């Protein structure tokens, strides 16, 4: 008798859990909101011990989520695969870094302006390079990165190959990362919001139409040039701002840190792995890749293998699930609602 009752109760509880669970899983607002709350409060654990490494990993994730979400705007929605997109990362870092070193104004104040500088630059470059699509474009994006690398290597004013060293902040060690943590958290949220907004806007629709067929888009009255270039500039903004913060975080700004192709490759891979052209794709892709990277680091240590695994992952993704995790799940109608933001 008793066991029947407990069975009934258990079944009842499981049913309620399942319903609540699927409600939670499919409601688009609750889980992301909860995650945001957790992330905002995370630094509190520093009161309980030295979790510097964890804080570092989390804000590293913020950085790359910002970058891959931004890249998604021109790469995913727009269809222009830019393999040199971290030029903007470097531009932002150098802009704020230079002002900090010369005039003492902290990058936390100039970050949003650094983003603007990057975006303006993107606007100009976009006009030139977005004329062609496909492999031509990819190559030009790599060449752009190379040009910048060489230029900044030789530019003595900003340190050449040695770059610039930025002053440390004077917080005690447990709290020195915290300003960067919150700055990057903010940038991440903003860049995700931008991506979501574009995705559901008329601008985004025009952009996606352009990515499929420029000529047909043009004849429906879409100003193809302006939209392409604007998307490119928008994609540069948060990357530039993040670069400014990152420069301060590292306390040095050098060409061989900011203008290396591995950063662009990672940005692109994270977006594609997660699902380019979706809002949550870059987020998932970044998290998965960072986990994967940490795992590799823990087991193998060596950094040359970093490139190997990134490349390997890229090949597997492109061969077997080019729509990425989110894209593939969506295709099979298996995507939980809280990840389905479009």
């Amino acid at each position: 008798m008793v066991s029947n009752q407990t069975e009934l109760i258990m079944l009842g509880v499981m049913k309620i859990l399942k319903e609540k669970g699927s409600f939670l899983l499919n409601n688009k607002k609750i889980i992301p909101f909860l995650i945001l709350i957790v992330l905002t409060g995370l630094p509190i654990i520093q009161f309980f011990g030295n979790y510097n490494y964890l804080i570092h990993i989390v804000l590293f994730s913020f950085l790359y989520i910002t970058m891959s979400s931004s890249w998604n705007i021109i790469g995913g929605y727009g269809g222009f695969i830019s393999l040199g997109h971290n030029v903007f990362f470097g531009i932002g870092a150098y802009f704020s870094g230079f002002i900090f070193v010369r005039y003492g104004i902290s990058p936390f104040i100039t970050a949003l302006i650094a983003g603007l500088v990057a975006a303006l630059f993107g606007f100009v470059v976009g006009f030139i390079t977005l004329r062609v699509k496909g492999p031509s474009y990819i190559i030009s994006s790599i060449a752009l990165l190379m040009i910048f690398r060489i230029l900044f290597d030789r530019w003595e004013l900003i340190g050449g190959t040695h770059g610039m060293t930025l002053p440390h902040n004077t917080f005690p060690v447990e709290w020195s990362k915290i300003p960067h943590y919150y700055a990057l958290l903010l940038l991440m949220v903003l860049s995700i919001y931008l991506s979501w907004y574009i995705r559901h806007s008329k601008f985004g629709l025009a952009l996606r139409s352009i990515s499929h067929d420029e000529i047909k888009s043009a004849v429906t009255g879409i100003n193809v040039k302006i939209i392409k270039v604007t998307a490119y500039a928008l994609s540069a903004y948060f990357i530039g701002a993040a670069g400014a913060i990152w420069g301060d975080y590292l306390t040095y700004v050098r060409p061989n840190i900011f203008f290396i192709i591995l950063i662009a490759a990672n940005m692109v891979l994270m977006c594609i792995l997660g699902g380019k052209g979706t809002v949550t794709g870059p987020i998932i892709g970044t998290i998965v890749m960072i986990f994967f990277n940490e795992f590799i680091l823990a087991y193998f240590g060596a950094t040359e293998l970093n490139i190997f695994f990134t490349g390997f992952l890229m090949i597997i993704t492109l061969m077997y699930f080019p729509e990425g995790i989110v894209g593939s799940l969506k295709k099979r109608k298996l995507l939980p609602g809280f990840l389905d933001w479009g």
Partner: protein
Amino acid sequence: MIEFLQVLILGICLGFVYALMVSGLTLIFGVMRIVNLAHPILIICGAFVSYWLFILIGLDPILSIPIAGLVVAALGVVIYKLIFERNAAQQTYSEMTVLLTFGTAMVIDGILSFVFHNTQRTTSPSYATDAIFIGDIFIPLAQLYSGLVSSVIIVGLAVFLKYSDFGIAIRATSQNRTSAELVGVNVKFVCLISFGIGCALAGAAGALVSFIFSFFPSRHWEWIAIMMSLVVLGGMGSLKGAVIGAIVLSVVSSMVGAFISPAWSTMVFFLSLFLILIIRPKGLFGIQSD
């Protein structure tokens, strides 16, 4: 004047080497519309083959060309079978395929860096430090020999493509894949062999590169953009265009390096890429593009 001629001759010699480096890339693009970003790392593989043959058995790098070519060709065929064969079925190129080659480049880079580390290496055969004088003009033997050998290989390739049966099949497949299939060409086989030949050319170029440049695995990033700018000027898919583009840009770059500043010589390649984008916005690859 003397200096000008010297730089010109060196530029041309180097141009032929660049042309060889790029010939395989052009061939593969022409036949399969694959922009192989992994081509430079394959050149470096060839350089490593020559390097180790030189270190271990003292084999002259020029003599190691066939071996380097074969090894890299074999590697290329394996890569093609594993990764590219399924994509090669389409006639039009796609960004995804380019990204695949990019991933492949990273994988090979990672393996080479891990095994051999990123130390700069170069083979140093006896002539690497010798030079001859033609009148007052000083020409290092390394550049001269590599230029000559490159031009011989390129001419051989051109003759093969123009006159041999398989060569014509390759050219036909590049122009109209379906038509080639409909006259009885085994297009899948042609693609495979072309990929192999392209990689063999990369290997051969690598053997030469081993003694005129210092190489290390991560150098391929630099070469990707350089090589792309070479073919872009002449037109992807055209061997003649690639050779012309290579020689012209190499000469200009050498001139800039000698008379303006060595720091800017590589910029010539990247800037020309951009200039072409401005002047010919229809697409870098002209007739070949979509």
